[in-house]
Structure formats: C-alpha cells, structure tokens
C-alpha cells in the first residue's frame, strides 16, 4: 500500500526537486484558524503538512512551538480535533501526518490511534520521543492500519544506530539538522548536510530535514541535498505575531510562497 505521502515524495523526485513540509499544531491559532491556515499553505504550493498534537510537556520544543501548543491546549484541543484537522488537510489535497509526543497515542490506545488516523486520510505519524526499543506495539498497529512510521534522527546518532532506526522507518526519515530544540536559527550549521549524507548510506527512503529553517535562502540550501524541507516555528511565528487571524493568514501566505520558491531553487 502506498500512502499519499509516499506518492508525493515519488512525484517530487521525478520533478527533481525537494518537497516543502509545513508543521502546525492542531487547534492553533484556533480550531478554524488552523484549517484556514492549511488551506493557505495548500494554495501556496506546500507539498505536505504535519499536524501537531499539542502536549503539556513538549521537551523537544523551543518557546515558539511551546506558545502555540499552550494556546491550542487552552482551546481544548484533543485527539478529535487532531483527526478532524487531518481530514481537512487530506480533503484539501495535502498529504498529512501527525507529529506527536508518545503519551497522547498511548493514552488514546495505540491500535485505535493508527486506525482512526488511516480513516481520516492520514499518511503516518512522526514520533520524536518513541525509541525503536519501545516501538513494537506501534509498529504492528501502524502496519495493520497501513500508515507510515516516521522516526527522527539527530547529528549525534551513530552510523550503526542510523541503520537500525531507518530500518524501522517508512515514508521518510526525519533528520533533525542540529542538536537542540525546535525554533528558527539565523545560522544553519553543516551538521544537517553531514547527517543526510550518513543517512543516505543506510537507506533509500526520502530524507527530510527539520529544525531551524525559516528563510528562502535556508530552504534553498537544504533543498540542495535533502528530499524534504520541514518548516514549523517560522510559520507559527507569523501567526503568533500577527495582530489578527486574517493578518496572520496573509503573512503566512507570503512566507509559504517564499519558501516554496526557495525549495524549487535548490537544484
């Protein structure tokens, strides 16, 4: 079975370009505002979205995503909202995955989560704090629901472990380009480039790079060596800083188009 996400990466490959993947927490800036934002991203030419399941203890996130998660949680976002946002993205023609800390899935029920995800058109789940040592229940659930399992690897991941982790991945491999939490960076070090090169030695899966990308020039540079460029905090920032939701959507559209252009200039 091929997921919409896998089809999208295959298509981008035939076009010899990288894909742009946007991250937004469900329920942010508001339940409807999130769906409006997804429509804006689709219209701007973004290739896929990651729907964040906001969590109370986001230890891998910097201040921007923490703020967005707080706003979303205050509005009462839970699994229902995550799935309805996923369905909205899917219906808008965007391959969509969920990105979540592990506990909300475990609480929901691992098999039920995978089934509900598939039912709502989701392609897979990015699980940044699920280690492969603890992943057996998720692997069988995801396999029977036919959805992708996307793990995050880091510059500190050894070659031997890269082979183990990527062997459990499907859809794509998420390469965290630097050591640290989410958030925009003015300087992107060379660690992303080196990491992608090491991943390529152990897997043929597409590799998408996240952490720190916020400008057209950065998107262009990463698109030169990766199959996907993931942008989260930069999109959230324009929504957070806007005076109104409609102003935020306008700013989001401008930034998304810039980044879409940047990604296409990469090769």
């Amino acid at each position: 079975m091929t997921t919409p996400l896998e089809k999208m990466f295959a298509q981008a490959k035939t076009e010899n370009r990288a894909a742009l993947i946007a991250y937004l927490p469900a329920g942010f800036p508001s339940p409807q505002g999130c769906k409006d934002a997804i429509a804006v991203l689709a219209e701007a030419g973004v290739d896929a979205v990651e729907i964040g399941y906001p969590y109370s203890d986001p230890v891998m996130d910097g201040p921007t995503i923490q703020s967005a998660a707080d706003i979303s949680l205050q509005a009462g976002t839970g699994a229902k909202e995550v799935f309805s946002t996923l369905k909205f993205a899917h219906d808008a023609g965007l391959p969509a995955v969920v990105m979540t800390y592990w506990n909300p899935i475990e609480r929901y029920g691992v098999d039920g989560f995978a089934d509900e995800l598939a039912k709502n058109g989701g392609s897979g789940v990015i699980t940044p704090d699920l280690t492969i040592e603890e992943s057996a229940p998720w692997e069988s659930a995801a396999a029977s629901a036919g959805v992708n399992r996307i793990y995050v690897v880091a510059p500190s991941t050894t070659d031997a472990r890269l082979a183990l982790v990527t062997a459990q991945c499907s859809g794509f491999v998420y390469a965290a380009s630097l050591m640290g939490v989410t958030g925009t960076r003015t300087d992107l070090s060379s660690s992303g480039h080196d990491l992608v090169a090491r991943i390529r030695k152990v897997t043929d899966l597409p590799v998408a790079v996240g952490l720190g990308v916020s400008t057209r020039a950065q998107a262009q540079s990463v698109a030169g060596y990766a199959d996907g460029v993931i942008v989260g905090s930069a999109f959230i920032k324009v929504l957070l800083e806007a005076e109104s939701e409609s102003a935020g959507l306008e700013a989001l559209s401008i930034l998304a188009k810039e980044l879409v252009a940047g990604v296409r200039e990469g090769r």
Partner: protein
Amino acid sequence: MNSVEAIGHFGPFGGRFVPEALIGALEQLDAAHQEAMTDPQFQGELAQLHLTYTGRPSIITEAKRFSEYAGGARILLKREDLNHTGSHKINNVLGQALLTKKMGKKRIIAETGAGQHGVASATAAALFGLECVVYMGEEDTRRQALNVARMKLLGAEVIPVSTGSKTLKDAINEAMRDWVTNVDTTHYLLGTVAGPHPFPTMVRDFQKIIGEEARAQVLELVGRLPDAVLACVGGGSNAIGIFHAFIPDLSVDLIGFEAGGEGIETGRHAATITGGSIGVLHGTRSYVLQDENGQTIESHSISAGLDYPGVGPEHAYLHDIGRAQYRAINDDQAMNAFALLTKTEGIIPAIESAHALAGAIEVGKERGPEAILLVNLSGRGDKDVETAANYFKIDL
C-alpha cells in the same frame, strides 16, 4: 518484527522515551554507571566521600515521645536529615558527580523542586569544580527562597522556569531542553529515580546505601527486622533508597506515602500511584497524573519536593506486584506530623519527610506497641520554616 531489545524495564514500566539526540549520552552514562558499580576504585572514592564529606553512615534515632502519638509503636528514624546539605539527595549527587568527572564532562545541569537536590548539586559542583545550572519552577523559587540563595552562594546559576505549572515538572522540561542542546559537554544530574534508563536504576544504586545501612543498624539495635519501612514518595528516590535492601525480606512491609495535597477527592494532589494512571512522562513509563488526552495534570502539595505528577517506574512495579503499598497523606496530616516531631523530639523534619511521619502515626495506630517501624527522615526542615510559620500563623 523489532530487532532491538527493550532495556531498563521494571515489568511493563520504565524504558526510554526520548529523542534520538539523547541516546548517545544515555548509552555513555549507562556504560559509565555499570563500570562504576564494579570498579573498586570508584566505589572506594565514593565511600571515602561519604565518610569524610556526607557524614555517613547516618544514625538511627528512636522517637520515643513521638511514639505515644503513633499507637505506641517503636519508631526508628533513619536520619538522612543529618547528611551534609540536609537531605538524602547528596548520596545520588556525589555518585553522579564522580561519574561526570569520569565521562570528562565539565558542566552539570539539575532540576529542583524543594531546592534540596539543587543545593546538593551546587555543592558537588563546588567540590568538583564543575559549572552548574539549576532549573527551578518560578513558583518553587518563591516557596524556597532560602535554598535559591544557598545555590547562588555555592556558585550555581539558578534559572527560574515560568512555563506550565512553574514547578518541578516544568523545571525537568527545561533541563531536558538544555541537555538536548548541550549534551556533548553537559551531564544532566537528575535528582530522582524517574526519567529514561539508566536514571531510575542508577539513582537507586546511589541511594540504596540508606536501606543497607538501616537494615544492619536496626538488626543491631533491636535484634530483628522492622515490621514496616516507611518513606515519602514524590519521584521516589529516598523511598527506593530505604526500601531496596528490604525487598527480599518478605516479612517487612514497604509503605510509600504520596502527597495527598488538599485530598485525593479534590483532584488537587500529587499522589501519582494512588490517584493516577499508567502513562509516559519525562522519558519513562510509570503512573502519571493525566487527563483523557494524555496531557499531564498539574500536581498540588504543600511540599515542593513531592509536587510532581510522575513517580519512578520501580515504584510502579513494586505497587503492581504487591511488594510495596502506597497511600496518600494530605497537607494537614503532614503538617500535624511536622509539628509533632518538632515538639516531641526536637527534630524539625522537611515537609516531604513529614508525610512519612504522618504515615508512621497511621500505621502505628493500626499495628500497636508490638510493631517496629523504620521511617526514612529524608531531610531536615530548615528550608520549610517560612512555609510552616505561614501554615501555623506564626508572626515572622
């Protein structure tokens, strides 16, 4: 099928739920810990430190007047409050500081609730010449201002954490963020038996000296094992420390006392095993206070050191297999026991430890004068004088 083996489990609990970025550091720590446990030189250095710096072995005090309020049961206090820095926290901190040196790292970070672990960490950093950053919830920096000053005097940087509930759980979040960013140079000196493997096992190994000493001391003093061993449980390091040596002694009941806050029925408590459910928090699977979506629920306790919505995975396991039992003690019961020990024995306990003392009153009344109860007096109450003065409406 998965080709890798799960590690660091206590039955279904424990494990490692962390970003890949931390795996290398956890594996390095695991290896250093395992090597240290069998390395006579490491063990010798640690024993020497405990002898000449911590003040070990800590003594046993029989609380004879307090006993009258506890059904006449014999109450033996393990005096971890007399350790240097005022609590059991120093046992773990010195062990991990030695490991930090062994791993060649120069910077430690720590979280703290009541400030006891932060003070112990800052102390070890001063002793070993390490850079030290302590994360502390903003709410706790107010409750424990004296300990903040102590840490600063010791040369540590104290960073108040203003996210979430502004308490221990959020201090751990912020310490984890620091660690992910600076893992090459930094050791995260976690203060309790929670977190990803190897922390629950390693911290227990550094705290189990409490029970090893106490078991021998009680045998020497009364010629038999105690009927029950009692300790307060937040994350659970002092409790595991005193329980561990007694786990094979099936005649000895192990009883942990969680913070019942304003009462379990009010929802404002920190009694994770008594009032929580199974989940994953801060890298480990255990009991957690959480809502139906898996979001952590804020805990409440008059004691900053017990104010944590998680608990060590080994406690979850001991509970599930029935080897230990866990009960809740609310704020008022704890403060009553705090006042009682102070007035009957001239010992001001930490409010954390007062939960175990309230437990001793309860269990003593159940079992009567024939019973011998060993209670871990895990810390002293100097830091809590202001909280207690407010509670008892004493003018300052």
